[in-house]
């Protein structure tokens, strides 16, 4: 079998568009996921049994179902839910429904990282903040979370690299991300294998490179 990569060059602008969508999805999902994950971690650590029970249930559910299922399920459920809430048809689109699915799914994973990060900060830090007149919320916001996030940045980034690869699952709902674009361009050009090999190479370079950078960051933070 002979490979012919000749059509990849002319397709680069289109592939770049796909990558742009992948990166947009990734950035928004990471921001939303970490924000929701932090709230879930705080709920999980709360003294309120109900709140911490709900948080625990949330994490267990999302960590026990396949991401692909969540993506497809949200694709159908989100418009339905919105109609139920607003009473009128609200078009959402694949991008928004995928984004919500990623945020909520990844939040379960991020929350476990954030929880470990918060727990790694000594209790004395909260005590010191109390003794200076801070409330629990202020102590968390000003003392614990800044230190915890600094410690867990490498882990959060590592998880985000996994998310970067997972974004390719949006092909299931027809969203034209990088992988899906490569697949369709390859079909059109009659070079499907070459395009998929190229896509795999790009995913590898980005993921591996980012992973190395995270390692270096981790070393700098621990020193």
């Amino acid at each position, binding site marked *: 079998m002979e490979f012919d990569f000749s059509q990849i060059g002319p397709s680069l602008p289109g592939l770049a568009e796909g990558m742009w969508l992948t990166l947009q999805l990734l950035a928004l999902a990471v921001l939303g996921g970490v924000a929701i994950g932090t709230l879930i971690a705080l709920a999980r650590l709360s003294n309120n049994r109900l709140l911490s029970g709900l948080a625990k249930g949330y994490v267990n559910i999302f960590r026990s179902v396949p991401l692909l299922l969540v993506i497809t399920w949200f694709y159908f459920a989100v418009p339905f839910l919105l109609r139920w809430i607003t009473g009128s048809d609200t078009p959402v689109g694949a991008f928004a429904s995928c984004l919500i699915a990623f945020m909520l799914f990844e939040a379960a994973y991020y929350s476990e990282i954030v929880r470990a990060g918060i727990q790694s900060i000594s209790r004395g830090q909260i005590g*010191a903040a109390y*003794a200076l007149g801070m409330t629990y919320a202020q102590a968390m916001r000003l003392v614990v979370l800044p230190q915890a996030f600094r410690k867990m940045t490498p882990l959060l980034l590592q998880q985000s690299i996994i998310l970067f690869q997972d974004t390719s699952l949006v092909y299931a709902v027809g969203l034209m991300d990088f992988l899906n674009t490569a697949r369709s361009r390859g079909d059109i050009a009659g070079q499907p294998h070459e395009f998929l090999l190229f896509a795999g190479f790009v995913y590898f370079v980005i993921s591996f490179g980012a992973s190395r950078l995270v390692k270096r960051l981790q070393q700098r933070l621990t020193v």
Partner: protein
Amino acid sequence: MSALLEFDQVSQSYGDTRVVDAMSFQLADGEIGCLLGSSGCGKTTVLRCIAGFEPVESGEVRLAGEVLSRAGYARAAHERRIGMVFQDYALFPHLSVSANVGFGLRKLARAERERRVAELLELVGLATYGDAYPHELSGGQQQRVSLARALAPRPRLILLDEPFSSLDVDLRERLSREVRDILKREGMTAILVTHDQHEAFAMADKVGVMQGGRLLQWATPYALYHQPATRFVADFIGQGVFVPATIMAPNCVKLEIGEFCGLTPNGFTVGETVDVLLRPDDVQHDDASPLTARVESKVFRGSAFHYTLTLPSGQRVLAEVPSHHNHAIGEPIGIRLEMDHLIAFHRGA
């Protein structure tokens, strides 16, 4: 002086273990108090009850007349206006020294906050360290920052939890004197918790000796040393050994190494055998004395030797002797009793 802090019949348990047992003491405005005891005696729990980190099971904690804690009620720690200095300093590692000190001043206007931070850094002798980060400072400097941070919001009371225990001995003594000066200059009321008697005596106006969750005695360092209320306090504070003695008269007692007659009655029955506490400075070296004791061991303390001596009866006593009297182990030396007041307990009490 009226009592600022009242710790009134407070008890607290962990599971089935009572760690603080019906404890009471009071601290006047501007006074520095100290809870002294070995680890596990409950002293840190007392501090945590005052700070509001720990509820109380019964009794009351009051500050300036206001109830802070009682069974089923605890004013939130952050509303108590009680500052705290921690054993491990608990500085905020992600903030500069200035930001640490100014942390409790977030409600003040910026200019005012900066003025107060500068004033405190000056007070603790770290005026040029404002931009440094905690990890760049030595242990002693970190503890000074921690003190400045606690003082900054002008708390009603400051709690110090074993504040010098992670420092080396020299620094510990210097810093404890320094901290006392700073607290006194600020007119601050404070409670220190420690297992180190030297620290307690150097810092505090009043010292409480704790054992097994109970406060055995709450008194000035002088009174603790010279009028210990119980055998445990007598033993715990300072050095000394208990030796048997016979009460000869209402104000006289006879020991193996001599007789002591006080100005006031000693409160024991004539003829009773009691245990007398002999401090190292009660036993004087005197070549002219007919009574000799054999040197069993000695510790060189620079200005003095601490001798452990064996009396003819086999009883051991301690003696503090000026260091130019260097005697060999096994050598008999003349000794004389030189007590100025009696510390004695019923046998077996």
